[in-house]
């Protein structure tokens, strides 16, 4: 069992191939944009410490392959996620259209405790290209229909809105995590009392 470090937020970035998942992650973590990224094979992640509401948290951002035939491989990485970032390319309506299936796929694979309220954030990337084919209104409407998912229009190239978007991601993830912590600590306590019970029994000497 992988022990979950305190203050570690696991964030998964999903979206069609070529929408800029790797670029967004690198823009946020390294504040760099490169035209040289290759198609992601498998999965990779970067970490970054940020401040959220006076708290230092480490974000572990998982970048995944965009081709859906790789999805099944990502299952192991979806688990334990605190937030899921859905990315599409504002110039390609199709990438927006597949958000539905990415969202469903994530919920099915990651099995979050409370799927209805699991924090998602939607990023419409590449607004720097200036030829958006997906109107903001349309994206916002979709987000509203999915339990008010926050929506940001970003540019990984110009760093537009990237910082703000990831702050929101961290915030939402944190809210999710604190809820989970309540659940997570409970079994530990039971375990402790279980131990002491056994101890007491033995002390009483009735182990027959």
């Amino acid at each position, binding site marked *: 069992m*992988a022990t979950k470090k305190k*203050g570690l937020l696991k964030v998964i970035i999903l979206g069609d*191939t*070529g929408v*800029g998942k790797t*670029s967004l992650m690198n823009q946020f973590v390294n*504040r760099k944009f490169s*035209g*040289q990224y*290759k*198609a*992601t*094979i*498998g*999965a*990779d*992640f*970067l*970490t*970054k*410490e*940020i*401040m959220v509401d*006076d*708290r*230092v948290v*480490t974000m*572990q951002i998982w970048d995944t*392959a965009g*081709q859906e*035939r*790789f999805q*099944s*491989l990502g299952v*192991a990485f979806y688990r334990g996620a605190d937030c899921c970032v859905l990315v599409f*390319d504002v*110039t*390609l*309506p*199709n990438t*927006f*259209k597949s958000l539905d299936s990415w969202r469903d796929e994530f919920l099915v694979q990651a099995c979050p405790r409370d799927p209805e309220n699991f924090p998602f954030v939607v990023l419409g990337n*590449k607004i720097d*290209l*200036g*030829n958006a*084919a*997906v*109107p903001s*209104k*349309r994206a916002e*409407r*979709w987000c509203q229909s999915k339990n008010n998912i926050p929506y940001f229009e970003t540019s990984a190239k110009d760093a537009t809105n990237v910082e703000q978007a990831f702050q929101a991601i961290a915030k939402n993830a944190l809210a999710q995590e604190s809820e989970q912590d309540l659940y997570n600590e409970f079994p530990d306590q039971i375990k402790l009392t279980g131990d002491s019970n056994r101890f007491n029994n*033995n*002390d*009483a*000497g*009735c*182990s*027959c």
Partner: protein
Amino acid sequence: MTILTQKRGNNHFATLALSEKGDVTRRRFGKVGPCALDYSKTRTPDQYWNDPPADELVQRHRISSGHTTPPSCRKTPINYRRTLHAVSSEDNTRQNPVSTKDYVESLHQNSRAALLYGKNNVLVLPKDMKEPIPGYLSLHQTATSLIIKWTPNELMNGYVEESQDKSVLWDYALNVNFSDVVYVHCHQQGEENGGTVILVGQDGVQRPPIHFPRGGHLLQFLTCLENGLLPHGQLDPPLWSQRGKGKVFPKLRRRGGRPIKSRIEDTDEESVDYVFQIINKMSHREFLLEQGLIDPESWSNSAHHMASCVQRAQLLSSSTTSSSSSKSISLEKAATCSLKEDTVFNENLPSPKSQKSASGESLNTVCETMKKQILSRAFYGWLAYCRHLKTVRTHLSGLVNVKIMDGEGASEGLTKEVWESLRLDDGSICFEEEIFRRTYYGAIAHSIRKEVWPFLLGHYKFSSTTKEREELDRTTKQYYETTMTEWLAVEAIVRQKDKEIMAANIAKLSSESTSGEPVPLTPGLANDISNDVFEDDVSITSDGEPPIFDENEQLSPVVEEKSLDFSSDADHKGECTTKLENGNENHVINDDLPVKESDSGRMSQCDSPDEGVGEEEESDDDNVIACNKPTAEKINNESKQSTAVVITTNPSQDSGNQSEISLGSRSSCSRLKSFLEDEKDSADGLGDCLQEGQRSNCISPASSQGGVYSGEILEQFGVNVHRIDKDVQRCDRNYWYFNIDNLEKLRNVMCTYIWEHLDIGYMQGMCDLVAPLLVIFDDESMAYACFCRLMDRLSVNFPHSGEAMDMHFANMRSLIQILDPELFELMDKNRDYTHFFFCYRWFLLDFKRELLYDDVFIVWEIIWSAKYVSSAHFYLFFALALVETYRDIIIGNQMEFTEIIKFFNDMAERHNAKAVLNLARNLVVQLHSMIEDQLSTSSTTSSEKL
């Protein structure tokens, strides 16, 4: 020992980490307020880094470990050793459990002693007491002895009346090792008494009588006692039969099936006394003989076994003398530790009596026990080792060839001179083994790779003559070109269709912004419109689309249909001409195709999205206008007018025509053999068809509905083309070879392969596999042919085409288990194959992303030749070598699998490929010798009963 080292390593890392992230830690745990916020602002962005990057880990490792031992020398081959050490170290910390609590705890089941029997409120009458006092009776079994304990309840509860002295109670407590007991007297007096047991020691001293409560407790106790004695001794059965005068003990009879038979006679008397002798002198050997566990001969050879065990361990740990001696030492140590354990246990007993009997004789006994212990440990170690080897055989013997060619004189590799000397006059190649061998041990000179690779990949046969190969080249080329014309035609249709849908969607989207109705977008569509969105330079698509969009928006909803056609037309023109130009460049369609030639003129100006690198920033309109060709102009003009819709009318003849021919050609292309004969004709026909097809496509969007290719194929290929476009333009754009033209070649090869393998479909990563081939051959058809050969082996690795990847992971797991147990234990903490996910990209792309191009060439050709030299699964050993190269860092930092993934992702293209290759070759040999050794010993062991 292992555990200790690991712990130490961990602490070390923790200290490092702390000192590094001290600020963070302080802030995290300290009071966080405005000050902290201010402070955090002084941190530069790179200080935010939490996990040390891979090079830092490597660097730290270099500093902290003065020298790096090759991983093969650091093996701890047999796991049982570790367990023993773990136990012994635990014992050392628990030498003096003097407190009551410790003592009480020692009465429970623990790591050193198994609790066989426990009963409270058993009465014991201590010597100078008049009334028996109740206490807790328990029977403990350690590895070597059986101990009976009785503790007064007052001590158990930790409650002592003030009047009583605690030490008195301690004196009352019983603590007897059964090795000191000779007789067990049992008295049963009437119903009201459960029975009394008196233990008589070797010195004749009687222990205080133990009174069991009623209800069969005595019998239970005896049963447990008998069980507990079993490995080293037993209750003497003759005493049973002598004493058992009747069926006084009906309950005893219930224990039928016990190895010790008690002959109980039928008598009705109730109260009977028994005396059981405890036979404790039986040697381990006799016991084993009796149990039929071993045959005498093998036992007498036990020393030899132990030696051979050591010997094998030595082989296992790469045949260094130091490791073998440490191995044997550790074996002895293990045995000693277990003895010490017993001694410690005895010494800990509060009762002084148990030690009184330590006479000369018992010293002898101790020595005997030690001997037995050592031998039995060795025996069990050997047994574990045999099982271990069985795992090797089952899982891994298929991974290496039966015989490994040696590398003598092959280290300089396959040079040009050698290569030429091996070529006969007719061009055929002799001594192919020598070629494989030299490649495996020394790689191929870069200048001749182009010639040699087709042989290694199996495209050329070594026995073929120059002429035959030329013929093959010609056939391959023609086949490739035919295939290409096919998919180019289909692509044109696909593009056409896309435009239609795209335009419709855009129109709907724009209208939706007013109406508010969500519009379903059609799948597989828009991807092609802007492929190079990653580029710094905005390419034509981004420039070209918006005007169309705007125009659409200006159009009234009624005009939607028209605008749709119009936009698709305008865009489509550029698309199909792109394809044609490529064909032309590669002499695919040659002079038969006037249209293509004419198109090629404007091609260079048409900044097709597919070209991806987007250096030109001309607008679409400019391009089109720049075209001199009448067709283009015509289309252009037409499309400029909103009346362009006219063209959509029915070119049904054209489309029908085209589709028929296309279909024919598709079926013909699957018959490569017959291809040669009628190639000329069919090529012409294809040319015509293409010409017509292109024309009709360019002119008429309606053709997209009239194709004979099923909609399924169209859609399938369309989806794949979009994906290919996305990846091609991202593929190795930082490598000098891949300029626009060569990326186009890459795209052609990829599309051709996918057209031929639509069932497999394009998957991310395939481009990476084509790229190095294209770099070497710089020839599309050759790269295509060799890629097909390469995919014969690698296609199973791609998702959904097989379980191959899982198998690789399983093999990696077994290999690490066998060759590096310490690392294995760390990695196996989560028993989940995803732990080997960090190898995923390695296997999928044959390490192409892990290494620089020059190294990729070397590793690839070695993997190909290894099949004939040492192992058809050399990639596994290379992967293992990669892991082993950094195993100290992985272990030292106790990396979790996510950290390992990150580490190796960070290390991509920074490995010392030569060193890793050497290690990989060594690992093959190592596994090979293990398996050989196992095979030779298995014949020996099969004669022994195990």
